[in-house]
């Protein structure tokens, strides 16, 4: 199974590298990949339908408890088949759709990378590796959506999609980490046994919320849905594959996968029902106002995803069966509708439903596919769609509370989806063919056979639902429910409420199809509400955030060095002051200090005055001279306090510094009084506070006892071991000689720097 998952990646990388050498053959080479995978997964059906669960584990990063462990059960098989099956068709379709495209090899690379990621995601039994694949789907979809990267709209949609799904991904990561930590394992199959402990833990709510965030953003639930219509900028194969059949279902998959672990709570049920319900209705209503075929399909997809979430929220066996069935149904009809739309777009050059009509004359097989797709979509018997719709109503009716609100919502949604299916699948083909489309030709088979295959499957399954039931639905339910009752998928359930609802759906839907003619007027009408759409709100929030970011960044990084210094010193003083005044008593033990003497005081006072003179002098040269006095006073202090080496060094260095200053100074302009007085006072206060804190610190440290172990060692051994009597020098060249060596390196580098800084003048020809 590892190879099955990695195949997509391996192929992606190899086609990127050797793509040039197989030019012209990429298409069928590529199509072989999903096809062989499809065959591979189909071969598991017998085992899985017997209730077996196949697990394979490859060690990856044991330190993190991260393994590449795969679990093939009913649920993952259902998704795998969908991914590889539709994948095969989409790959084949692409070969014609993007025939001769300059970057076809890249496209296939992204597509197969995506497929690999998707397979990895649904097969993973390890939460972290699931997340790894989850993120890879986001990234590969980023590349796919932005495939037409010279178009601004494409890039924007790609970024939006990545932003939303990336955020979702990180929420997933958060949830995964928390859940893994709580359960003590990242193995999903091991968590099922711990479900009760997990749901009763205090971090359950956080975990659930994070998982919801991940699933909702990936599966385009309200209010995160808006990236999906935008993502329709991608080439049709991408829309088909990612945005109807597979990637958007990843969120659904996540919710299904964790239903047995996290799903047994009120929070879970109510959140999913509400969010799913709102999404399905909100998106369904939007359909009425759209004229772009892809837009209609996008909103109907969102709505369908809402239904799925809604069903998972209901969480009963019936609901989950309905969910699984509807996943298949939706994949079949929505993928075909997208492919059909692609053909129409490809051949006529437009997707505007108000302009399309009568195409059945020129595109007959496509029209058949469209019609069948519409039937499946509308749940018209005897298609598989009918079974799906029927089950949804049943699930709603049997749920218990708020039945009519739930069922009413479902009904309205299904009616509008019925309408959408017919607008997309039937409307372009009926009526009078406009003259401009008369030259339209039926494209090559690779384009119209895939949708036809899909719809045929949808019809066939309606007649033999138990095929799907035994192979996929039953094993799937086994995974989702801890205890299951036997059930059978049937077309005919007898006369019951669900049937009445179905009839209403079809009747009202058909009526709507004839009454509600899509028009640009309606589209413009809805655009007025654009301001309050989640997309716009998010956009506004993003803008606001950008403005805030700019303000924040420019506030701190405003370009003024003194602002930076003041911030740092202010911060330092604040915290130091806090520590000092909360912990210290400010009393001092004066007995430990030495006496004042006249000469010391005189020198110190001179030093202090010279410092102040340096600070307040209006003349630079006087300030420099004053620094000379400071240095001299330092020299004397060092002398008084037994540091002759320091005294010498300080004085020599000061003299050299004065020389440096003097050499440089006359090239510089004179002082100007530049700072405002307020600022000077502010800075003065800040400096004084800082200085005072340092004084207090010094006095406090001086009260602490002295530890002279090292000093005594030096004193004892300076002559005996290191053969020197000037202990300071012995420390410098022996005990701590490395310091000195590096210190001389500092000097060297400084000299090199000075040399380079003054001698190196880049000429224009050097400036690159």
């Amino acid at each position: 199974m590892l190879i099955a998952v990695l195949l997509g990646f391996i192929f992606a990388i190899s086609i990127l590298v050797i793509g040039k050498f197989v030019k012209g053959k990429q298409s069928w080479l590529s199509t072989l990949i999903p096809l062989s995978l499809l065959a591979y997964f189909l071969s598991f059906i017998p085992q899985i339908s017997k209730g077996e669960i196949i697990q394979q584990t490859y060690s990856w990063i044991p330190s993190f408890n991260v393994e590449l462990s795969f679990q093939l059960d009913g649920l993952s098989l259902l998704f795998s088949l969908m991914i590889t099956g539709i994948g095969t068709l989409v790959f084949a379709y692409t070969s014609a759709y993007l025939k001769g495209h300059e970057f076809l090899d890249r496209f296939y690379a992204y597509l197969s990378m995506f497929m690999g990621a998707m397979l990895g995601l649904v097969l993973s039994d390890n939460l972290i590796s699931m997340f790894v694949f989850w993120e890879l789907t986001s990234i590969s979809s980023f590349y796919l959506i932005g495939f037409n990267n010279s178009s601004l709209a494409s890039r924007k949609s790609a970024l939006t999609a990545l932003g939303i799904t990336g955020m979702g991904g990180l929420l997933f990561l958060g949830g995964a980490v928390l859940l893994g930590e709580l359960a003590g394992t990242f193995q999903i199959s091991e968590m099922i046994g711990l479900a009760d402990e997990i749901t009763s833990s205090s971090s359950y709510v956080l975990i659930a919320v994070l998982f919801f965030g991940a699933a909702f953003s990936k599966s385009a639930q309200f209010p995160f849905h808006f990236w999906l219509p935008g993502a329709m900028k991608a080439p049709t194969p991408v829309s088909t594959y990612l945005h109807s059949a597979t990637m958007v279902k990843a969120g659904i998959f996540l919710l299904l996968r964790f239903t047995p672990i996290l799903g047994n709570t009120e929070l879970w049920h109510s959140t999913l029902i509400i969010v799913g319900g709102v999404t399905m209705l909100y998106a369904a209503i939007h359909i009425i106002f759209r004229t772009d075929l892809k837009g209609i399909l996008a909103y109907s997809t969102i709505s369908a995803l809402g239904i799925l979430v809604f069903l998972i929220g209901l969480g009963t066996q019936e609901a989950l069966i309905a969910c699984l069935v509807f996943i298949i149904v939706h994949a079949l009809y929505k993928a075909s509708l997208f492919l059909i739309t692609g053909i129409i777009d490809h051949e006529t050059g437009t997707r505007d439903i108000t302009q399309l009509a009568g195409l059945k004359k020129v595109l007959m097989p496509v029209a058949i596919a469209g019609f069948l797709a519409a039937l499946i979509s509308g749940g018209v018997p005897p298609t598989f769609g009918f079974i799906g719709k029927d089950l949804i109503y049943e699930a709603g009716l049997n749920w218990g509370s708020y039945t009519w609100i739930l069922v009413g919502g479902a009904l309205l949604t299904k009616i509008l989806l019925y309408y959408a299916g017919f607008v997309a699948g039937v409307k372009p083909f009926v009526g009078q063919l406009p003259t401009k489309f008369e030259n339209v030709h039926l494209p090559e088979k690779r384009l119209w056979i895939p949708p036809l295959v899909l719809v045929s499957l949808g019809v066939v399954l309606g007649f033999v639902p138990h095929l799907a039931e035994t192979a996929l639905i039953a094993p799937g339910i086994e995974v989702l429910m801890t205890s299951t009752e036997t059930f059978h998928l049937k077309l005919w359930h007898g006369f019951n409420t669900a049937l009445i609802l179905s009839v209403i759906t079809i009747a009202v839907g058909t009526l709507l199809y004839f009454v509600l003619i899509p028009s640009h007027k309606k589209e413009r009408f809805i655009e007025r509400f654009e301001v309050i759409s989640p997309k716009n709100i998010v956009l506004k929030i993003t803008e606001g955030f950008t403005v805030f970011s700019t303000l924040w960044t420019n506030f701190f990084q405003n370009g003024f060095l003194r602002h930076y210094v003041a911030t740092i010193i202010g911060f330092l003083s604040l915290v130091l002051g806090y520590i000092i005044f909360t912990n210290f008593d400010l009393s001092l033990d004066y007995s430990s200090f030495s006496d004042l003497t006249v000469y010391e005081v005189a020198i110190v006072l001179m030093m202090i005055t010279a410092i102040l003179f340096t600070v307040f002098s209006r003349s630079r040269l006087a300030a420099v001279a004053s620094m000379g006095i400071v240095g001299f006073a330092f020299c004397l202090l060092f002398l008084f306090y037994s540091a002759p080496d320091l005294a010498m060094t300080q004085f020599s260095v000061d003299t050299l510094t004065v020389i440096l200053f003097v050499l440089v100074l006359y090239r510089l302009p004179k002082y100007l009084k530049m700072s405002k007085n307020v600022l000077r006072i502010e800075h003065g206060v800040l400096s004084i506070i800082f200085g005072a804190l340092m004084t207090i610190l010094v006095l406090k440290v001086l009260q602490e006892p002295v530890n002279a172990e090292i000093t005594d060692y030096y004193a004892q051994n300076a002559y005996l071991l290191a053969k020197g009597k000037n202990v300071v020098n012995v420390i410098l060249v022996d005990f701590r000689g490395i310091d000195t060596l590096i210190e001389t390196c500092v000097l060297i580098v400084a000299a090199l720097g000075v040399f380079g800084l003054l001698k190196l003048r880049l000429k224009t020809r050097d400036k690159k």
Partner: protein
Amino acid sequence: MEILLAITTGILYAAGIYMILRRSMVKLILGLILLGNGVNLLIFLLGRITKGKPPIIPEETKVFEDLFADPVPQALILTAIVISFGLQSFAIILVKRAYKVLKTDDLDQLNTTDEDS
């Protein structure tokens, strides 16, 4: 005496920071030097001061027989002085060069690198 020296240390820190906060590059460098001196004095003071007893072993003996000042802070400050000298010289030249190229010694006008470019 320590109190007076501690106050001097504080003044050196304060003066250094105040000068760094001015707009002229020359003041900036004077501030850096003052700050460096403040730090040296702090280390010196915290190594405890001893009057008139340099850490030099008398000619006649092989070890100290009398009190002596702690040589370690002295060695540290010496290193720090040398390093500061290197840094200061570099800073002085940097300022000179900056003035030549930027035609100003007003630090407030050095803010293009923080703007979007």
